């Protein structure tokens, strides 16, 4: 089960939260091994990451971060929930699967 448009802030290498936030298109707990997973979708093969994504994604992979806002509550991740270090998987179009299938295509 995934949360849509989950906002997160990553920790920097000193353990301080980076400024701003970024949104994960889909995120959730993998049923196979319990690990946290995250997906970002881009409509075209060459669509660039946003400034926020360029800042937060690498730091999230190294240091983890926290959930911001309420979109994680459906999967037991309230605001402030500490996210383990997670590499965001970027999937690119054209020909993306239906959003409801993103998660199952990759993780379930």
């Amino acid at each position, binding site marked *: 089960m995934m949360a849509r448009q989950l906002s997160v802030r990553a920790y920097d290498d000193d353990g301080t939260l980076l400024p701003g936030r970024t949104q994960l298109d889909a995120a959730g707990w993998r049923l196979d091994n319990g690990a946290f997973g995250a997906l970002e979708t881009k409509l075209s093969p060459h669509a660039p990451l946003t400034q926020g994504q360029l800042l937060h994604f690498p730091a999230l992979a190294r240091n983890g971060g926290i959930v911001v806002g309420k979109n994680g509550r459906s*999967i*037991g991740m309230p*605001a*402030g929930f500490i996210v383990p270090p997670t590499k965001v998987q970027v999937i690119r179009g054209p020909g993306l699967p239906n959003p409801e299938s993103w998660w199952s295509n990759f993780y379930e």
Partner: protein
Amino acid sequence: MSNAQQALVDGLTPFLGERGFKWNKGREGFFRKEPFGFLDLSWSTHVTGQNGGEFVLTPLLAVRHNEVDNIVNELGLIHGDSNRRYTTTVTRSLGFFPFVDGRDETQRIRIGNIESDAKSAASEVRSMFVQYGAAFFDKYSSLAACSEGLNDVIETKSHPLLNNFPMRAYYGLAAAALCEPDRVETLFTSYCQFSLREFPDQYQQISGRLTKVRAMAGAALAIRARSF
């Protein structure tokens, strides 16, 4: 907050206000304070490009029992005091777990039709509240009901009252320790065994946290007993 959400809030405020709920702007939810904690009606939101652009809002009902949340939050899984004050003991998202199988409680507000869609969404949420939401809040205002619910079933990863394992195990164990202490050892063993089987890589961490929860809840219970 988006115009769509504001319109929905406006549509719900009189109805929920009569029932003691107040809109909390910072947390974007309707809250009602209770002696044991609070009740919370809010929703998750995402935007899609369908129908010319629309907001998809999924209602969520939650109850906090301070005693339980204060114990689980000692595990350090939530960043910041302000966030820890708003964690909840049971949390039911009606997107994954509607009260009636197959009934879609998700509300959609089209960007080009905010006023009428928000009015309709507010009506649907009010109806859900009357039919099921009020009973949910009544039931889980009881800590014993939370304990029973969170620990039923033990061996599942998704759950309608807290859709996250191992968080549910921590909450279930803490709730049981405070109101059904006879069950604690059995629950502790069962949750440890389940995590060992399903998430062996995380077993040490999970069992260590369950041990802490058991100890903290036991201490809280002892303090409570002395105060009577």
